[in-house]
């Protein structure tokens, strides 16, 4: 629901103590884990702004780590995320950066590594009330909230790729709420971020993949 719902007022259901510093931090990290799409073996968090100053008292560190372990914002295991990470053999590092100026006061960077050496970098900002935005994936600036079904397409910056994506969605009667294109450099890697009202069926993904300029697809159901 686009306008405020009952459950935006009576909610979120969350592990305390702070919707922005605990629930929002967990939501960023959980989204990062879903984008990474495999178990994380090593993770490095960098905290900026207000996160860097008050993270301990708000459990921001536990919430971020909990998210990377796959815990949602209302999962009581967040309280013990450091112990659980140790049990699962996850190597955890925190960098507290009070000096670098960031656009948003509650910003966190998450660098994840998998068992086979796969790496992914995600930057998120906690925007209040438990809500968040992902603003960077690897070297590319993006902008999405996870409040819609989100399709992220990694592609080569070539003509016709976006037209191909939207045609595949239109053929399956999926209505696009927002669509944005982000790129590294002209002709290099780019991301198309599509947020939709409906669920995106798996068959659409297979069709989108057929274009030679598509490198990778990530689907985040709502």
């Amino acid at each position, binding site marked *: 629901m*686009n306008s405020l719902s009952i459950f935006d*007022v*009576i909610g979120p259901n969350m*592990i305390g103590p702070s919707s922005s510093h605990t*629930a929002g931090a967990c939501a960023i990290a959980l989204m990062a884990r879903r984008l990474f799409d495999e178990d994380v073996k090593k993770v490095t968090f960098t905290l900026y702004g207000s996160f860097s100053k*008050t993270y*301990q008292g708000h459990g921001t560190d536990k919430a971020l780590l909990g998210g990377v372990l796959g815990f949602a914002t209302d999962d009581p295991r967040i*309280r013990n995320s450091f112990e659980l990470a140790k049990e699962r053999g996850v190597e955890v590092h925190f960098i507290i950066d009070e000096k670098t100026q960031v656009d948003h006061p509650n910003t966190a960077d998450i660098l994840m590594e998998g068992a086979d050496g796969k790496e992914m970098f995600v930057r998120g900002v906690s925007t209040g009330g438990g809500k968040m935005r992902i603003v960077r994936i690897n070297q590319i600036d993006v902008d999405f909230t996870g409040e819609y079904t989100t399709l992220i397409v990694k592609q080569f910056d070539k003509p016709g790729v976006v037209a191909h994506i939207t045609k595949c969605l239109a053929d399956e009667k999926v209505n696009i709420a927002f669509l944005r294109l982000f790129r590294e450099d002209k002709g290099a890697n780019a991301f198309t971020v599509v947020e939709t009202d409906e669920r995106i069926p798996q068959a659409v993904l297979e069709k989108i993949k057929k274009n030679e300029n598509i490198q990778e697809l990530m689907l985040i159901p709502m």
Partner: protein
Amino acid sequence: MDFTTGATLQAVCEEKKISIAQAMKEREMTLGNVTEQSVMDRIGVAWKIMKDSATTPIAEPRKSIGGLIGGEAKMMKEYRESGKNLCGEMLSRAMSYAMGVLEVNATMGLIVAAPTAGSSGVVPGALLAYQEVKGVSDEVIYNGILNASALGYLLMRNASVAGAEAGCQAEVGAASAMAASALVEMEGGTPEMCLNAAAMALSNLLGLACDPIAGLVESPCQTRNSIGVANAYTAAEMILAGVKLPVPFDEMAEAMLRVGKSLPFELRETALGGCAGTPTGCALGCKICKK
């Protein structure tokens, strides 16, 4: 069906002869394209979390992360049970529950933000004590939660519920406006009376600073939630008794936002002024942050 102000909400209720709770439920079903059952199921889940967070710390008190609170809900219960309590049965219970929710919140337990984490004790505290003393069913309470969410929605939309933007009057003030309105509806008051009770609750806490010691959601947040339930009950009782507040809800919501914006930076969740800015508050801040 939608409404965007207290006045339009009242008009919708009067035209369709429905309660605020019913109007909010219909709005959710229309705009979210969801069934009545799914709305009520989610309300049920929220109420269960609210009750657990209000009562667990009475049985199992815990120290907060910052160490400033822990055990207060149990103390309040024991004092009430000694029979020496100054407040009546309902308010004494509500204080204990509201403070319990804040203890759970500050120990990284599960709560329902209502409308925020820092003010999460007021609505459950006021409603749970009401349910226990009056002996009403969960269905009555669910309507109370729906009613409260309507007032909270209007305040989020037209004013603010963020301490960083408008001070504690926007958090505990808003939560007590929501609870006051819910109590009036559960007691059989009209939508107009609900809106008046919410306006009165807002007016009672107008200008309240957000000044958390060490920047943590612990002190004075916990005791402020206790004041929040007292404010909700007093506003509801005054309206039910026929006391009038001349200023309507929509104007009071706007006044709350304007007062909030004119609060100095130090009194808007920065931990620089008010309780946090006292010599003791500053010393506690330094001690906790060095830990």
